[in-house]
């Protein structure tokens, strides 16, 4: 059971997430919807503490996540894998190594770090990675560089990486927003498969109401940092959407799409190492 209690995040004068309280039982697939600036991303990122909450608590299995530090915090991040809108793979490394990144925090001690820096993974770890890749029809591209794959393939590689963490939760921040409809379907199918077959709790931000209705057990609708709706897909009717957001469902999706586009800023170009004369 994942519990959020009065979770709040302020950026200066702006309150991005305002006193969110939710209880999510293990094994549920939850969709979080909302418009630009509704606080969906911030909410998700506070759960694995890529963003620190200003107030409130995150509790999982009776443990206070918001109090964790150092190695404990890293162990928690391993427990709740994250899927990003832009996949966040290491483009210049091969797919297999990208997936093995999910094992890094499972290699204890100094020697574990040293051997992983030398990319010395065991045959068993490689077998795990290949099995995960095979599950999503990616075993044949294991030795290709990540940047040679399509967006849909890259996102499924990211799901494989997440699976190798052997997580209990999976947080997906707009996982299909950068994909075409066909690839979006394969990625959503993969997320549902992970949820149903592995029993992993999935929390995903989505901007298509129909996608959320089709895939999720439960939908949470946010508006200006607050939870305005929390219920089953059947309960989130068009009338309800209009009541919450004051616009029709089509208009809502256009506005949510804007949120996605503003989130998809290109990554800053890297400075090549300053060569000294």
């Amino acid at each position, binding site marked *: 059971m994942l519990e959020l209690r009065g979770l709040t995040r302020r950026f200066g004068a702006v309150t991005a997430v305002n006193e969110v309280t939710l209880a999510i039982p293990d094994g549920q697939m939850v969709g979080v919807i909302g418009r630009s600036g509704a606080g969906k991303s911030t909410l998700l990122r506070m759960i694995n503490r890529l963003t620190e909450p200003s107030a409130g608590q995150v509790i999982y299995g009776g443990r206070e996540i918001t109090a964790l530090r150092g190695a404990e915090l890293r162990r928690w991040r391993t427990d709740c894998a994250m899927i990003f809108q832009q996949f966040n793979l290491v483009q210049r490394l091969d797919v*297999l190594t990208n997936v093995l990144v999910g094992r890094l925090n499972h290699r204890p001690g100094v020697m574990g770090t040293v051997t992983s820096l030398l990319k010395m993974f065991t*045959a*068993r770890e*490689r*077998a*795990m990675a*290949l*099995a*995960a*890749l*095979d*599950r999503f029809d990616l*075993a044949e591209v*294991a*030795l290709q560089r990540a940047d040679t794959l399509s967006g849909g393939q890259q996102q499924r590689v990211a799901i494989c990486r997440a*699976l190798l963490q*052997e997580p209990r939760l999976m947080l997906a921040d707009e996982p299909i927003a950068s994909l075409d409809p066909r690839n979006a379907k394969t990625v959503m199918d993969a997320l549902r498969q992970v949820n149903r077959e*592995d029993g992993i709790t999935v929390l995903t931000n989505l901007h298509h109401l129909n996608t959320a209705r089709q895939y999720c057990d439960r939908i949470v609708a946010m508006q200006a940092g607050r939870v305005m709706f929390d219920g089953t897909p059947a309960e989130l009717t068009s009338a309800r959407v209009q009541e919450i957001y004051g616009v029709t469902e089509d208009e809502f999706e256009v506005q949510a799409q804007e949120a996605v586009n503003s989130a998809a800023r*290109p990554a*800053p*170009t890297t*400075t*090549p190492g*300053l*060569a*000294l*004369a």
Partner: protein
Amino acid sequence: MDAALPLTASAQAAISRGEAAFQAARRQRRQATLVYGALLLACLLVAAWMSEMTPQALAAGLPRIGEYFWRILPTLRWEVLFADWETEGSLAGWFYRLDKWAWLIFETSQMALLGTFLGTLIAFALSFAAARNLAPTSWSFHLTRRLLEFLRTVPEIVFALIFVWAFGIGPLAGILAIILHTAGANGKLFAEVVENAETSAMEGVRAAGGNWFHRVRFGVLPQVAPNFLSYALLRFEINVRGASVLGFVGAGGIGEELYHVISFNYYEEISAIIVLIILSVAAIDMVSERLRRQLSAGAVRG
């Protein structure tokens, strides 16, 4: 997921196929590493042998470095440390020509500033033609690349000698030498920054019907400008150090004085000048580090 989980036959097959491919790729990589590693080691050994860099030579020479440093240390006496410059053993006595040296160091940094600025301008003008992804034609690419190579491989001091012969003794010769070296060094670095730039913006400008200059101005420059500035500031620091030895051949700045006191074995004066150079370079380093940090912060915001 784990070995405990029963895997289907097709998954088993995929794993063993993948593992075999991985092993083959790793074997190949290891062979390549071995071959090129051995080659590199051989080159290094030849280099060490040619340049007589042996452990014995190092062991023999190292103590003498310490001895030189010991010699150039000033003999300061605590009780007269803050006395006037005519007193033996005072700080003022150590830096007894501070006014002249400070002026010379100021002149040195002015040479570096002017040389860096003009050299960077030339580097900027040439770098786009020297970038593989932007060079208009292959011959212009090779021509500019070779020119830049020539400019940065001829040692600054050699350029300085030529210019002293042509323009006479003084800072002008030094400035010209710095300009040429800076153009060569920064031109190459700039070209590489341009080569690493994202091509999508360039394509956008091209698709809008823009010519080569439009592509450079709108497709590339906004991306690379922060890196260019950061390299230019770095070069300024390097040039201050470089300019302080150009005076050895009469090309202006503190170098001439330094050469003079070194060759006449005025030990205390050597250390005094070196301390001044270190102080001024550190000051410039700190200022430009600050500037650079502000620039890169601005780049992230913008």
